[in-house]
């Protein structure tokens, strides 16, 4: 978990080191926008903007969704991935707990058996 958030942090800081990308985040904080909108607003080529959005997306700061021919960008974390990692961590905690519970319960079973024999 610690390592996971560390690499996320590195990616985030990398993404934030660029003025255009910070501007894009600020823009998306106000409203969703397509790559074309963003390219126009920041006077860039589509390819250039795609690269910037890609970096932000990798860092988990922006999500994109393609509907028809338009790719819309939203400010925000990768909700589903975050949740999947979270649930898996929680499942591992309980699995470890239950494995120890099995040991305790096996011992109770043995003790009970011993009482009757």
């Amino acid at each position, binding site marked *: 978990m610690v390592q*996971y958030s560390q690499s996320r942090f590195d990616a985030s800081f990398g993404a934030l080191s660029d003025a255009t990308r910070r501007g894009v985040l600020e823009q998306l904080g106000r409203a969703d926008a397509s790559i074309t909108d963003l390219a126009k607003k920041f006077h860039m080529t589509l390819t250039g903007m795609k690269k910037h959005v890609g970096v932000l997306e990798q860092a988990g700061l922006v999500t994109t969704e393609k509907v028809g021919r338009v790719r819309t960008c939203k400010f925000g974390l990768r909700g589903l991935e975050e949740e999947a990692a*979270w649930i898996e961590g*929680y*499942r591992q905690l*309980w699995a*470890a707990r*239950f494995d*120890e519970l099995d040991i305790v*319960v096996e011992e*109770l079973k043995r003790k009970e058996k011993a009482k009757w024999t």
Partner: protein
Amino acid sequence: MDVRRESEATPTKNRTGVERKSELELVVTRTVNAPARLVFEAWTRAELFRRWWVPKSYGLTLLSCEMDVRVGGQYRLVFRHEDSTMEFFGTYLEVTPHSRLVWTNEEGDNGKTITTVTFEENDGKTLLVVHDLYPSKEALDSGSTGGMPEALDQLDELLVSLGSSSATK
């Protein structure tokens, strides 16, 4: 052949399921190979409970574990993790021997989480269902993830400050 049979009999095949039922509910399930009264005992006697509740691999030490398992009774667990201690405490709302336990979890700032555990015996085995009801979505999201939500909050703050400084340029 014998080896295979042996490995099939190991307890590791007991699967732990986790499902997020709604924005406020998490459900964990597991079948334990023992009658409900023994499983219930392991959940309600402090000296047994403390042996399994904190998995050894998690680097936590359980300093104390007090459980007054009756309706209105309190529990309090104190852990040490590296240099800090953490407390978990709450009240038992329902205690039905061998079938149902309900308690509150009151250490959070965002209200009480309610945990309901049911013990369902079938053919000498017990299906455990642990249902957590959180007071808010935020409380659930910050539940058991350790540093993550805090890290994300810090990132949010950073973004806000970066956003405002680039806007003034």
